């Protein structure tokens, strides 16, 4: 470092803000340079004067009191209504409500989807395994009594041959973990499976259409019974049939 650079660093030197290497170099220079030594002495004299005369101000007691009072007011105003406990309790309540809502929604939705898949599977299986019916009869008075003692409910069984949907028979099937009644109708070689089981809820719902793997499905609830009707029949004709059944 030259003389000029050292002069720039004399303040940092006097303030003990320099590393040891720079301190050594500056001390070496100070021994040789009168001008720098005088500047350095002036800095130290000034620092001495500032520290000795203690010109620092101290906070008046009045200010201290005012600030404490203002802080207390501020703390009360902001924390009375929004204490951490209150915020926590409110947040927890909202989170719980949201969780319950989402849980039941997804549960309902996934249950609905699972049942639709089961209905389709049951329908397909009934066609494949030549196990369409356990009791083959177009006579509703033969089919209905057949279920007695096999399920714990009595399904409505009607033949709609007059309207072009003859009853083909009935069988037991398994849906949503329960034994259910399956009625089979026929429309121009298109079989229609109708699954009947006791409804979990009590409210009636009108037939709602859905499609799955090329099949048309209707689902409704009526007088405490849940119905699933499925067929590869076109939607318009299946709707005619549903109208008869859900009458």
């Amino acid at each position, binding site marked *: 470092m030259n003389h000029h650079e050292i002069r720039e660093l004399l303040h940092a030197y006097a*303030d003990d803000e320099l590393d040891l290497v720079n301190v050594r170099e500056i001390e070496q220079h100070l021994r040789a340079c009168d001008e720098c030594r005088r500047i350095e002495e002036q800095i130290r004299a000034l620092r001495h004067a*500032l520290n000795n005369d203690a010109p620092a101000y101290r906070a008046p007691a*009045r*200010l201290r009191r005012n600030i404490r009072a203002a*802080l207390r007011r501020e703390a009360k105003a902001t924390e009375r209504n929004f204490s951490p406990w209150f915020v926590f309790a409110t947040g927890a309540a909202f989170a719980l409500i949201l969780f319950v809502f989402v849980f039941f929604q997804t549960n309902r939705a996934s249950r609905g989807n699972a049942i639709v898949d089961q209905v389709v599977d049951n329908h397909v299986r009934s066609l494949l395994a030549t196990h369409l019916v356990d009791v083959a009869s177009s006579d509703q008075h033969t089919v209905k009594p057949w279920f007695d003692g096999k399920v714990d409910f009595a399904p409505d069984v009607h033949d709609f041959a007059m309207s072009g949907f003859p009853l083909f028979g009935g069988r037991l099937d398994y849906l949503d973990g329960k034994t259910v009644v399956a009625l089979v109708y026929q429309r121009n070689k298109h079989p229609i499976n109708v699954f009947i089981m006791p409804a979990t809820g009590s409210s009636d719902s009108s037939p709602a259409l859905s499609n799955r793997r090329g099949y048309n499905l209707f689902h409704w609830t009526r007088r405490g019974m849940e119905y699933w009707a499925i067929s590869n029949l076109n939607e318009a004709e299946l709707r005619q049939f549903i109208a008869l059944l859900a009458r």
Partner: protein
Amino acid sequence: MFRLTESPRLSEFERKVLPHLDAAYNLARFLMRNEQDAEDAVQEASLRAFRFFDSFRGENSRGWFLSIVRNTSFTLMKKRDPEEMNVVFDEELHSGQVPMMDAGIALDRAQDRQTVRAAIEQLPPEFREAITLRELEGASYKEIADIAGVPIGTVMSRLARARRQLQLILSQTK
């Protein structure tokens, strides 16, 4: 109704920040240059610090508090005395060279504290800030840089110029 204690936030603030009230007032007093404005600045800064206390995560509560005091003071200064901010210390007027006098003479002249205070008050605001923090509060260059929001190099040059000017003022004081 859900409160269990008397604001733990307030007692933590009182424990961590209020011990630095003297330093805060000293800085504000030299920046504002009068009692009333200094008290206003510190009071406002304290409330602001309390409101933002949740955002304070560091170790250095003094530096954190002083930077709020400093910013509040500068804002207040601009509002109450817009001229002050534009005053540039006239180094030409105070002729560039410090007279090569005996260090002891400067010391004698600066004996009484009012002289020193008055001399500091003649400096521009940024220099008053640097001198107050360094000489009266013993802050390091790094701390001053953090409080004033400038690089360390700027702190160094401000201090050097502030001291040169102080020496000039004191050497001319009778």
